[in-house]
Structure formats: structure tokens, C-alpha cells
């Protein structure tokens, strides 16, 4: 049967919908206007998949485990694994961040005084899209912070056993973390000698941030392999934490040099994170 070509009115409707779509797209890109809707849907998606998992897969797993006499050993194994993950996080703070304890005012925050052993909150990964992480500019993940008090965790730093991975940008039941490699993320960095400072922008590529500077203004030479640290100037991340090594020095034009910094932290390393306010 032949299909009728769209009438003038139908064409006008198409035009209206396309223009509406473009407006929605523009507002979403420029102002994140629909973040609440996306976060709501994301929360629903995570909760429902968790619920479905609990009533289907977990039930079968439990049934299987019950039939085995090794159940106790399995639980013990899981507990030990969690304890090991926690100890990795603790070690990270002790080994790489000893200045974090000694030098700074971090101790004066009341939330940290509660327990000297755990100055940070533990968070569990809830959702992470590796496709978007590998292909696109937006590098985000959703975590659930295990905490009794109803705090607003916005602008808290997020780290795992390998180092700083990002900061919380929206806090709800699940908190959205913007990774260091997200194209709209900036982190202030410095060299170890405190003579070179720059703002590193996320590159949209996994594990890479880019520092741009003008060699006419800053004449110091930066070499491949040089280590960069957080400068603490942004107020989100503490200073003197190793961020990464210079991977490539790219001269764009006589007034612009891009430093490609390979991050030392990998967000995929663990599903357990530490969350802290500096």
C-alpha cells in the first residue's frame, strides 16, 4: 500500500519538534538543566536493577550457596576481601598522604574528628559506563556513600587506592562523580619544586589530562616523565598528592604548549572509594 507523503501541516510539526529537540539539546549541553531528570532516572535504574538482582540472581546464588557446605568460607572470603580493600584505602592515606594529616587544617573539620582511624567515608560504585569512558568527553560515575548522617557531599574529593580520581558534583542517594579526565573538569597542578603551576583540563580520553601554558610567559622547561602534584589552589583537592607524569609535550604554536599528563590513578581499579572533604 502506498504511503502518503507528509502534508504541509505534518512537515511543520516535524520542524517544530526538531527545533524543540535542538533547544533541549542546547540547554542540556550549556546549562545541565535536565540533570535532575537524568539523575532521577539513573537512581531509578540503579535501584531497580539492584532490586531485580536481589530477587532473581541473588536468590539463585543463595540457593546454590546453601547447598554447599562452603558457605561460611565464602562469607569469610568476602569479608576478607572487603577488609583488604579498606586497608588499601587506609594505606593510601598513610603512605601518599602523610602530609595530608600533618600539615593541613583537615583535622579541624568536625566530621573528621569522630574517628581518627577513618577520616574519610567509604563509597561503593553503583554505576559506571565504560563505553562513555572510552569513547566520549563525559567521564562520570555514580557511587553510593556509606554514611549514617545525611550530608551533602557536593565537592567532596573521591579517591581509590591508586590516587585521586575526581570530585562529587551532585549528591543525592547516589552521588555523581566527575572524573579528572572529564572534558569539563579542571584540576590545579604544580611541579615538585613549586615553580611551575598550571590548570589541567580533562582530555576526554581515559587516564589523560592536559595542561596548557604559554612558553613565552613561563620559560621553565618541562620534561617527559616529570611528576605533577595537586597544588591545592582549587580548594577541592589537597596539595602535594601525586597526580601523574608528563607523557608528551606538544607544541601547538609558539605561544601554546600542551602537556599530556598520564594519571597515576585508575578509576577502574576498584569498586570501593574513599570520599573526603578537604
Amino acid at each position, binding site marked *: 500500500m502506498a504511503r502518503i507523503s507528509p502534508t504541509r501541516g505534518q512537515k511543520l510539526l516535524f520542524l517544530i519538534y*526538531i527545533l524543540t529537540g535542538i533547544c533541549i539539546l542546547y540547554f542540556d549541553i550549556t546549562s545541565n538543566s535536565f540533570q535532575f531528570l537524568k539523575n532521577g532516572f539513573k537512581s531509578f535504574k540503579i535501584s531497580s536493577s539492584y532490586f531485580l538482582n536481589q530477587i532473581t540472581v541473588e536468590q539463585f546464588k543463595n540457593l546454590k550457596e546453601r547447598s554447599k557446605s562452603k558457605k561460611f568460607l565464602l562469607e569469610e572470603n568476602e569479608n576478607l576481601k572487603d577488609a583488604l580493600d579498606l586497608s588499601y584505602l587506609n594505606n593510601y592515606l598513610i603512605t601518599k598522604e602523610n602530609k595530608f594529616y600533618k600539615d593541613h587544617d583537615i583535622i579541624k573539620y568536625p566530621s573528621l574528628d569522630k574517628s581518627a582511624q577513618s577520616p574519610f567515608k567509604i563509597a561503593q560504585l553503583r554505576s559506571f559506563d565504560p563505553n562513555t569512558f*572510552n569513547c566520549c568527553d563525559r567521564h562520570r560515575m555514580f557511587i553510593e556513600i556509606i554514611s549514617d548522617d545525611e550530608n551533602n557531599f557536593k565537592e567532596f574529593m573521591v579517591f581509590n587506592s591508586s590516587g585521586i580520581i575526581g570530585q562529587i558534583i551532585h549528591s543525592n542517594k547516589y552521588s555523581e562523580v566527575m572524573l579528572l579526565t572529564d572534558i569539563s573538569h579542571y584540576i590545579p597542578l604544580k611541579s615538585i619544586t613549586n615553580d611551575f603551576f598550571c590548570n589541567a583540563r580533562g582530555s576526554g580520553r581515559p587516564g589523560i589530562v592536559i595542561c596548557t601554558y604559554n612558553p613565552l610567559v613561563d620559560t621553565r622547561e618541562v620534561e617527559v616523565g616529570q611528576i605533577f602534584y595537586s597544588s591545592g589552589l582549587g580548594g577541592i583537592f589537597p596539595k602535594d598528592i601525586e597526580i601523574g607524569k608528563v607523557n608528551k609535550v606538544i607544541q601547538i604554536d609558539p605561544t601554546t604548549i600542551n602537556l599530556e599528563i598520564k594519571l597515576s590513578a585508575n578509576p577502574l581499579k576498584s569498586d570501593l572509594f574513599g570520599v573526603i572533604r578537604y
Partner: protein
Amino acid sequence: MKYVKIIFSLILINVVDQKIASFTYEYYLIIPLTFLSYSLYVYKSDSNTSSGEAFLLGLFVDLISESFLGLNAVFFCLITYFINIYSNAFKIFSYLQICIFFGLASSAYVGFSQMIINLWNFSYVTLFISSVFNIIFCIFIAISSIYLPYFVKRRL
């Protein structure tokens, strides 16, 4: 009931799409399976798909694929419009021409969507490889439908 079927199909295809993308992206290849499936649905419909339906389905795909809202809505509206306009003209086209049309439409989708979601790392290599592969993929789908059982062929 028709829309429930479409929505569930879109969710399923989107999941497959995302699973495939995680492998293919390493080879500079993007196959917009959701977009192609929607195009096939519009192409095979007996009646014209309305602009509202295209827009709402696009918004739904935006939501489930976690991309910017409006991205798929615009592309779904555009492809629906073009298919509706050329629905009768397609009858005098050969299968090869139709495959090239859908292959190029999906390339345009890949190109524009990459310009929006991955502007800083936009790759012409990805665009070129995806274009060639998508055209071949459409031809492969057209050829393979011949060998499918009758009841599936009737739907395709």
C-alpha cells in the same frame, strides 16, 4: 501494546548496542544499532510515523543511553521525516541504493553525535571506517534477510 513492544525492543537493542560499542570502539568503529533499528522500523511501517512518536522515542533513547537530552530526538525526527518523504520513491530504488541511503544516514548520525558528545577527540578515521562498515552492514542485513525463515522475512 504496539508502543510497549517498541519501547522494550529499543531497550533491548540499546543494551546490545552498548555491549557491541565497548568492543568496536577500539577499532575506530561505531555501529549505531538503535538508530538503524528505528530507521528500519519507520521504513517498514505501513503508515507514516508521526513526528511526535519519533520525538518521544528519541527522548526515551536519550534517557536510557545517558546521552544529552534531545540528541536522538532530533535525529529520530530527521530520519522519520526523510523516510516519510521518500517512502514512495524507495520503491523504485534498488536494494543497494536503499542500503547506501541507510548506511550514509547512520554515518551522518555517527558524525553529528560525535561532534556533540566527543568534540575534543573527534576522529575522521572513526567516521570513515564507520561509514564504510555501516553501508556494508546494511547490505549484509538486506542479503541475509533472503536466507531467513518466511515469517521473519515477512517482517523484514
